[in-house]
């Protein structure tokens, strides 16, 4: 009676898939996306835009045109890291809603460290060093919510939300006061020269951060599904009392989850800086986290599906940004579309578990 209770379920343990199950899943995912496109299209019609032209343009610019697809793939890198971090946390039952703060601090750390380290060591080592530092700083940033959750049971939703507000401000303080580039009038960190950044893939403009991001998501997926450590985290997430009963060290695992989740978010910030941005400007906050959270849920916390959804998000944002310039539809439309997809999918899944799957 209770197993089916929550839709958009944190129920990764579906019985191993036969072809029919997978097909069912795909239908359940693609169907809602199409419905959502229609509903969102009606909004476009309402504001006087031809939805077909808009969608066509977004796909053209985000996926089909050479420059567009390269931008799309590059944009995926930081989002993939965030997705990886969120999958770890959510599968372990920890609501880390503070990824944006962790991301930003990672970004600032990388931006500050890379030029400094480059003075002292080979560029590749400096980039690696900056990447590691960013990860570590984000991990440390998550320590307070982690300890409060692990030993005092303080709800992590409040603490991570607050740490995100704090982190965004703190990142700005660092940019404006500590790591300010003295040579520019704009408040920003020193810029990493383009040739020192993460290498691009082959002859394209795609940052190799994409590969790192893919490795992160797939790695997390395999760890969560194939290893003892991942299974322990899932047990804690699915039933903390069973975890205690089975003798798992729940506080330690909780801290580990926070560290991994935040570390991946911080690494995402580093990849964006070291691969694309080159510096952090004051008040820069892309707030990817809040849009990636729905993606990992749409993917039902599955790593491979998350890659597909992050690609979708990236196409929509890159295409949406172009459409904003060309068709005059602000890229905020992308947010609306994501929200509608999420809600339609939740309803369809509810209807499916409630009425359709009963017959099986």
């Amino acid at each position, binding site marked *: 009676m209770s197993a089916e*209770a929550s839709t958009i379920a944190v129920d990764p343990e579906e019985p191993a898939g036969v072809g029919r199950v997978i097909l069912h899943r795909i239908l359940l995912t693609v169907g809602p996306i199409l419905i959502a496109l229609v509903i969102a299209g009606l909004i476009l019609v309402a504001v006087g835009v031809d939805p077909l032209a808009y969608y066509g343009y977004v796909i053209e610019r985000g996926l089909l045109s050479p420059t567009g697809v390269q931008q799309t793939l590059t944009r995926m890198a930081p989002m993939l890291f965030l997705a990886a971090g969120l999958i770890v946390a959510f599968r372990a039952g920890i609501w880390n809603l503070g990824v944006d703060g962790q991301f930003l601090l990672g970004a600032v750390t990388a931006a500050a460290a890379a030029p400094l380290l480059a003075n002292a060591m080979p560029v590749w080592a400096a980039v690696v060093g900056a990447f590691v530092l960013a990860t570590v700083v984000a991990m440390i940033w998550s320590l307070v919510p982690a300890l409060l959750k692990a030993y005092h049971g303080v709800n992590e939703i409040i603490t991570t939300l607050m740490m995100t507000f704090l982190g965004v401000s703190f990142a700005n303080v660092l940019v404006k006061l500590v790591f300010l580039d003295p040579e520019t009038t704009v408040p920003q960190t020193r810029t990493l020269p383009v040739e020192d950044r993460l290498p691009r893939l082959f002859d394209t403009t795609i940052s190799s951060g994409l590969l790192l991001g893919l490795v992160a998501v797939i790695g997390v997926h395999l760890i969560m599904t194939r290893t003892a450590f991942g299974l322990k985290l899932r047990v804690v997430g699915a039933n903390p009392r069973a975890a205690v009963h089975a003798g798992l060290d729940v506080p330690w695992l909780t801290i580990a989850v926070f560290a991994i989740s935040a570390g991946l978010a911080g690494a995402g910030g580093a990849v964006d800086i070291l691969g694309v941005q080159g510096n952090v400007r004051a008040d820069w906050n892309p707030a990817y986290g809040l849009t990636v959270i729905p993606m990992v849920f749409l993917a039902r916390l599955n790593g491979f599906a998350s890659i597909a959804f992050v690609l979708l998000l990236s196409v929509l944002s890159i295409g949406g940004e172009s459409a904003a310039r060309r068709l005059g539809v602000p890229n905020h439309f992308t947010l609306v579309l994501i929200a509608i997809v999420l809600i339609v999918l939740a309803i369809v899944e509810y209807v499916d578990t409630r009425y359709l799957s009963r017959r099986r």
Partner: protein
Amino acid sequence: MTGLFSEIFLSALLFGAVTAAVPLLLAGLGEQMSEKAGVLNIGIEGMMIAGAYVGFLVAFMSESLWLGFLGGAVAGMAVSSIMVLLCVRLGLNQIVIGIGLTLGLEGLTALLHHFQFSRTYPRLPAADVLAIPGLADIPVLGPALFQHNLLVYLSVALVFVMGFIYRRTQLGLNLQAAGDKPSALDIAGVDVVTTRTVAVLTTGALAGLGGAYLANVGAGIFVPFITNGAGFLGIVLAMLARGRPLWVLFGALLFGISLSLTTALQVAGINIPTDVIQMIPFLAVMVMLVIFGRKSSLPAALGLPYERGSR
């Protein structure tokens, strides 16, 4: 530094603090009611932005501030009705739907604003002020605290109304039961879903009202993403205050002062990045949590949908 503590400056600072605190207060009080009834309403940011947008639009078109407030409350309620349908009635995940609503309404309001006003940001006339006779003439405090829009006083009064509801009315008992032991409420003959519906709709109305105040009185204009996390702050306030409305008021004032201080220092030309001041209340709260952070007694059924017959 001489000008820093002048009467006018202090007055302006406190005035700004109150103005900045009111949306947080309304959001926090609203969220508190949802949480008391067992619904974690993460969509409150979306309800606020909807309230800000509609509230502004109605006030702009009708040239009536109060119609604007009404519009904002109705808009917030409309958004919360989606939350009611999906989370309270169907039992879908409250956090996921909440984030979805927040994103969607941030996007939608920005989109609609763009198509209506393009890149112009029309301004509303300054809100009329109700000076409280006698009190308004007190030096420093008078202009700071007692020369505000009527809604400000009403919001403060609402703190006490809420306290009364929670402690002294049948509704208050119902709300608490819905959050702590919904099955007991159901057995006693009160419908849990209805109780939670009332709570979430009230949350929506208050959040929408807070958004409308933010746009119409606080800023005088609507710009996309104007709420800028105020709803999330409301969640933080409600969770920290747990069941106590007065604590929401204190918390909102604490954050209000820091927000006001940032603008005041900019005006005063003092060279501290505003971010430093913005960090202070969060730091204070985190320090408090670290020191006193024992198990927070949130309602037992918070975040869990209720299904009759399942324990």
